[in-house]
């Protein structure tokens, strides 16, 4: 007897290939072209480079022992910048931890980001979290936290609240391929499907969760397919193609804003560096795996396109990099000479107002001796 009318198993189904817009020859597929002006495109390219360069510089700072940690977006810049760019002014972003480029583009001041990397007195989150764990409500950007996936469900709840309050607002949540295994992915997508929350689930499928390859995260053939389990439409996109990312994210935002509910986007990209400055990827993956991705570098693809259209030159590149360099150096100089947060900030904002026991503990700390500096 054979299996009765089973649902299609992975092997039976053909996966739509990820959408590409920016083709091999540097041209755009007119069908899905997001139709950016050249000025917009230059601006976007500059953001990509800002992200890349900042990333590289921060790794260096960490190696020099001047900051404690950095987690970057090397190779994933187009997925991040493109999707954030597609969000409207009023929309909110709930980050994972690799999206400082998006926060900067949405208006988080550069100095503020660097202050967070140093956890100094000017860091608006008062050095309470590790580097790269910033917050910026003014940029309509959430608060980075380490526990994997929690922002997925929260983004859904935020978007749902806006809809209940009849505000035209869409949320986007970033997360990695590994995060699809978390409880939160299940909860966020399930609730979003049931309540048609105006939320965009943006999965950066960069192939790895620290040392664990995506094949070990899930037996589904794609992440996008997981949308079926929740009645959430899904799309795969070339995550190293700025144009394609903007196109699919804009579509998802439009659907959400029109009351058509959530979308799951699977952006196919690759983590070109270690997981973070604490990680050494040579321990678990061969360098050869990176090679095909080198030629798909998201920045170079945009630059080639811009050059083709005569809007970018080596001189401009040089000028841009010089400018970013100066910006970085200046921000670091300021951050590094800013003192640590005041002691009493340890107790602020645990609650709306300071309860008696924290008042007591604060007094005790302030009256007592200071800790030795060294770690």
């Amino acid at each position, binding site marked *: 007897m054979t299996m009765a009318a089973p649902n299609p198993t992975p092997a039976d189904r053909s996966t739509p290939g990820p959408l590409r817009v920016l083709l091999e020859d540097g041209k755009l597929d007119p069908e899905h072209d997001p139709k950016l002006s050249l000025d917009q495109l230059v601006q976007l390219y500059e953001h990509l480079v800002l992200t890349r360069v900042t990333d590289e510089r921060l790794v260096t700072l960490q190696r020099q022992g001047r900051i404690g940690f950095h987690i970057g977006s090397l190779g994933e810049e187009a997925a991040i910048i493109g999707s954030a760019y597609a969000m409207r002014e009023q929309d909110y972003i709930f980050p994972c931890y690799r999206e400082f480029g998006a926060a900067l583009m949405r208006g988080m001041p550069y100095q503020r980001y660097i202050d967070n990397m140093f956890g100094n007195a000017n860091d608006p989150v008062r050095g309470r979290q590790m580097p790269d764990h910033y917050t910026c409500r003014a940029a309509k950007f959430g608060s980075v936290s380490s526990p994997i996936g*929690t922002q997925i469900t929260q983004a859904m*709840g935020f978007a749902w609240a806006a809809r209940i309050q009849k505000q035209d607002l869409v*949320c986007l949540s970033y997360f990695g391929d590994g995060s699809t295994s978390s409880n939160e992915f299940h909860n966020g997508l399930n609730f979003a499907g049931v309540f048609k929350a105006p939320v965009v689930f943006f999965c950066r499928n960069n192939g790895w969760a620290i040392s664990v390859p995506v094949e070990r995260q899930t037996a589904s053939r794609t992440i996008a397919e997981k949308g079926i389990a929740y009645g959430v439409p899904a799309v795969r996109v070339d995550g190293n193609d700025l144009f394609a990312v903007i196109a699919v994210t804009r579509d998802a935002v439009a659907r959400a804003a029109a009351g058509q509910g959530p979308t799951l986007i699977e952006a196919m990209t690759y983590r070109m560096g270690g997981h973070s400055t604490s990680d050494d990827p040579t321990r678990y993956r061969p360098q050869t795996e990176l090679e095909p991705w080198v030629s798909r570098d998201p920045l170079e693809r945009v630059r080639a396109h811009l050059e083709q259209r005569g809007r970018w030159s080596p001189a401009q590149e040089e000028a841009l990099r010089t400018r970013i360099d100066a910006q970085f150096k200046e921000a670091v100089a300021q951050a590094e000479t800013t003192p640590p947060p005041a002691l009493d900030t340890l107790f602020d904002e645990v609650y709306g107002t300071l309860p008696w026991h924290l008042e007591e503990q604060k007094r005790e700390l302030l009256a007592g001796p200071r800790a030795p500096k060294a770690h």
Partner: protein
Amino acid sequence: MPQMNMVQAINDALRIAMKRDDRVVVMGEDVGRVGGVFRVTAGLFDEFGDERVIDTPLSEGGIIGAAAGMALYGMVPIPEIQFSDFIWPAYDQIVSEVAKYRYRSGGEYPCKMVIRTPVGGGIRGGHYHSQHPEAQFIHVAGLKVVCPSNPYDAKGLLLASIEDPDPVLFFEPKRIYRAAKGDVPEGAFTVDLESAQVVREGGDVTIVTYGAMLYECLDAAEKVAGEGVECDVIDLRTLWPIDVTTLTESVKKTGRVVIVHEAPKTCGFGSELVSLICEKVFYHLQAPPKRVTGFDTPFPYTLEMEYLPLSHRIVPAVLETARA
């Protein structure tokens, strides 16, 4: 003044809060059409509709994660966890996110909500419908924990919890949901958080408790009075941050204290109370502070009345403490 039981008082508080502020929403499993398995949200669905009284999928993590998002937006969600025994799938969202959001965002994202959930035994619920898990929340910075013992406080404390800027765990002692009755004013009023109540006065021993065990403590106090031992009985009402003054003033007077709670003893809230008392009024103590609590076993079914720290176990503890 209308007579109400706890279910009615809580229902009334929810209705008042929802009427005056459209940011308040109620959500959870079975809270909508059927009005909750204990009928605490009865009638709200008809009155406020399905966008404000929300039947959710069966996932406590989803409920609290979604509520967290709503709270960050600026709504005031009041999620219900059907039994506190089922709160653990949401524990990560509560302790890692809800409790820490204001702090870690430098105040930019408060995450205010009131998590309502029935607690406690004595209703033949066995392992998973009887627990009293306050300790696991009191230990977590950023949360407030409330547990009323009567309809008046239930309404006043719930309205205060909803107005409070911080996330509150609102524990409802289900054994007395209908058994505890009393006069409850109409309309809005609050009972201050962080205010304990001395429910009975006496100079010999301080009994500290909260929730359903209050009635057992009062019964025990009555019984020991027959043996010449007079007790202060303190109903903490808000467990954390605690009204430490009421507690220490009483112990200063009596020098003797018995703490009663349903949760297991080890690392229960009673251990914090003993420690606080030692810290604040050690030199007033004339006998070792005593804990009468649930045993360090899972909560049983058939023998639940032997497990609970009822009057028959409180009486000898009070006498022993009085005579120590």
